């Protein structure tokens, strides 16, 4: 197996799901650092250099809203899902479930690889 090829395909597979995960996690308000930890705790670790630009992009697309607020004597930027974001998330999750169901069926129906030995 070509590990580099696998890694590229894996990243491609994850790319879309990261957006869904971030939107879903932000149904509850978080600031960047805590959001990353919360996602990592759920098994969805995201590189910081991916997460912060993604948050800005989703905000500029109107899916998130943010607010600078003081917490623990420091100014932090809190993000949460916007009204538009909630609608989009609902549809994305529906699509996600359809894809998962289809993939599960396809994977179950596929003939298993011949066993060696």
């Amino acid at each position, binding site marked *: 197996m070509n590990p580099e090829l696998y890694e590229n395909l894996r990243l491609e597979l994850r790319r879309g799901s990261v957006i869904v995960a971030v939107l879903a996690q932000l149904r509850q308000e978080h600031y960047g*650092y805590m959001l990353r930890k919360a996602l990592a705790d759920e098994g969805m670790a995201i590189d910081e250099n991916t997460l912060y630009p993604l948050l800005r992009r989703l905000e500029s697309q109107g899916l998130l809203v943010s607010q600078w607020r003081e917490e623990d*004597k420091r100014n932090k*930027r809190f993000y949460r899902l916007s009204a538009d974001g909630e609608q989009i998330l609902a549809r994305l999750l529906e699509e996600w479930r359809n894809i998962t169901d289809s993939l599960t069926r396809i994977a179950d129906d596929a003939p298993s690889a011949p066993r060696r030995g």
Partner: protein
Amino acid sequence: MHRLDAYLKTIAQLLPAAERHDIVKELSENLLSHIEDREARLRRPLTDAEIEALARDFGSPLEVAGRYRQDTRVLAFGRILVGPVLFPFYAKVLAFNLGITAAAITIVAAVLRTQFTNLPQTLLVHLSIQFGIVTVIFSLAERGLGSRHESFRAAYQALLTPPSRGSDHSRVSRLGSLSQIVALVVLLAWLPAFGNAARGALAEIGLALAPAWHAVYVTLACLWGAGIVQAAINVVRPQWTRVYWVTRAASDLAWLVMVTALLGAGAWVVPLGTGVSSPAVSRVAHGVSHGIFVSLVVTAVISAIVVFFDLRRLAGLERGRRGGSSGRASSTAEEHRT
């Protein structure tokens, strides 16, 4: 926190101006959260070396800033030659070099007027050469950036990470300095080709450049050489901003002196060969001389304005240095510790 501030300032220099403050504020908050988290686990403050390692793990300033760029333009011929991180610098160098090349050739064409018949071809050849050289240099840089060789990556990290010791002064962008080196080296290499093209165009109409121009070649080479040395110094010492501004003012002043000296020379073209010219060649020489005179006067006026602004900026920097030496403690990271 000095290391963290220097790191954030380097990132800030590479970000789009409109979003710079907001992004750096958030990055700063994130890094401080990391530091606090680790300090809580270790039950002691982090050392400078540990903070430096944390910034290094976070990514080189170039990589971090590159993620925020909306500008995702790349140069690709089948495969990507210059990626989105280096592309803005590539575009700047290309615009600078192609701009100077096009302006120089157009001025020669305007001076020679109807005698210069192959302007499109000359422009195409010279612009293609510059485009090719700059593109090759940036493609090699791009390969280094994406290299899997640890030594290459380490060299880039060292280059793009702020030096260990340094103050909070504003800095000259390292990538800007590197871009300046590339632009000036390419221009220096192109200068003889341009000289040959101008001499060739004049020879076609029986004229040659007067000896006064020889000094121009040497002066230009010295000016661009000084620019390369200054940029090399600022790559190693980006915090030496005075070197940058003083060199720039001195170069602009030297340029003004050179143009003024040329204006004083009076004769800018001479008949080719024996020095005995026909009336027709003399008429052409007179027309060409007039064109050169007008170009030099315009250049001198522009140079004088540039020098005025340089000196004003230097005076402002000097005032700021004297006034701000005592209270220069505005720290990006500290700002967020309320």
